[in-house]
């Protein structure tokens, strides 16, 4: 009986032209991000103001903790900390949410034929919107502590945000897919991220790390990304070599994610 089984399989459902599908993906992304934002601030008195109030309160707490209580010696330590912290919060929250995106939306994946890559992307973009709200807070703190506001931010900030997006999204996509196969990914990610938080120069400058680890920091894409952020936010300058390195990492990750997505995403329907 089994020699009657045809060897190849394909499925061909008449789809819309590619231009319509891409446009539709953007619309779906927009609506999903809008949903997340609406849901988060629904039923709160301050509403969308929380997007600003939250990072501001966060910044005040950190300023108080490190400037007033711990009295860290480094000049402008709170600004230094926040310029590393806010991009990191975007990265962590985005990764954590995106990793669960297929599992938490199992009914969507199983019952509706939609472009599956949009789901984790919507989580990363949602957190990116929140990151945008932290930028005025950052600007305020930089100015308040005697730093400089730069006109070049107008093009530098979108560029670095795009860089972080294309670095993080492929990783998020792969984690979300892996999490469908093995649920432990979600838990391992939590541990990994808290480890990476201290392995990335966010609360300390690289110069304070023991020199034998210098090699590691030179090759850590996250350390480089944070240094690009600091270059832009503290000096208004884009440091070309970390930027180029991050772009290479992003390109490699994208290629890997594309290959993983192509082979794993058709199987999601039955795995969930």
């Amino acid at each position, binding site marked *: 009986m089994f020699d*009657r*089984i*045809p*060897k*190849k*399989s*394909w*499925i*061909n*459902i*008449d*789809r*819309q032209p590619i231009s*319509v599908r891409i*446009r*539709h993906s953007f*619309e*779906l992304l927009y*609506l*999903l991000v809008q*949903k997340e934002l*609406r*849901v988060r601030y*629904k*039923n709160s008195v301050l509403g969308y103001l929380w997007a600003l109030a939250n990072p501001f309160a966060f910044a005040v707490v950190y300023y108080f903790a490190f400037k007033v209580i711990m009295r860290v010696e480094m000049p402008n330590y709170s600004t230094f900390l926040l310029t590393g912290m806010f991009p990191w919060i975007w990265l962590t929250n985005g990764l954590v949410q995106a990793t669960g995106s297929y599992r938490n939306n199992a*009914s*969507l*994946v*199983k*019952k*509706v*034929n*939609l472009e599956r890559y949009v789901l984790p992307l919507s989580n990363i973009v949602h957190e990116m919107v929140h990151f945008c709200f932290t930028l005025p807070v950052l600007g305020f703190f930089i100015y308040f502590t005697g730093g400089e506001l730069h006109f070049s931010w107008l093009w530098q900030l979108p560029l670095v945000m795009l860089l972080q997006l294309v670095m993080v999204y492929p990783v998020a996509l792969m984690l979300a897919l892996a999490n469908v*196969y*093995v*649920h*432990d990914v979600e838990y391992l990610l939590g541990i990994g991220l808290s480890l990476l938080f201290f392995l990335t120069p966010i609360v300390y400058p690289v110069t304070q790390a023991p020199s034998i680890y210098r090699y590691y920091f030179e090759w850590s894409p996250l350390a480089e990304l944070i240094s690009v952020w600091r270059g832009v936010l503290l000096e208004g300058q884009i440091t070309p070599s970390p930027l180029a390195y991050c772009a290479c990492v992003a390109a490699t990750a994208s290629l890997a994610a594309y290959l993983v997505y192509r082979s794993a995403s*058709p*199987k999601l*329907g*039955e*795995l969930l």
Partner: protein
Amino acid sequence: MSAIIHCSGVWKRYGKSARGIKELLIGSRKIVESRYSREWALQDVNFEVKRGESFGVVGHNGTGKSTLLSLLLGTMQPDRGNIRIDGRVASLLELGAGFHPELSGRENIFLYGSILGMTLAEIRKHFDSIVAFSELESAIESPIRTYSSGMIARLGFSTIIHTPVDVLLIDEVLAVGDSHFKTKCQDFLHDFKERQGTLVIVSHELQTLEDMCTTGMCMNLGQIVKIGDIAGVIKHYGALMNSCG
């Protein structure tokens, strides 16, 4: 009339996947044998459905009917064989799978419509008639957590049927809402057929199938045992049910 759904030599089996890192490392997983566990969920399924036709599928629970619908919808891939559908497909598999309880009816129509594959322009165009069909004009601005389950089903149904599709897959959801809305759904489905829309209906309500469909097939343990005229299929299914006790 030309065929719109081509299903030739389709085989499907479910892999035994690991559910945690422990099972992945240790490898083995206890396999529970039951009458549902067989190697192939679908074996050599061949059929065609013509444009404008209504096709009924009957069979015992766990015989592969829903698997077949998932394959037709494209959320799963066949292991062997080919499926070709010359048109857009939507399913009434789960009404409101993309609804969020905190969002209003209006916001949910946009989100769900987009999830179903409608463009924003299409949703805007059909918005009024979606609301009118669901008869939820007065509640459209309130969050749908305040809706009753019947209201949610109505909103989901209205949104799906306004998706411009050629093929609708229906899995046991003809019993939506009260009898008034049910009649409306039946009317819509007749109208859909008039417009050369194709229906694939999985149901255990044999009377409904006999009314709605012209052709169909009966499945048993992943195989087609009878295909053709709906009356003959239902008769065959009745005999099959009796023989199993």
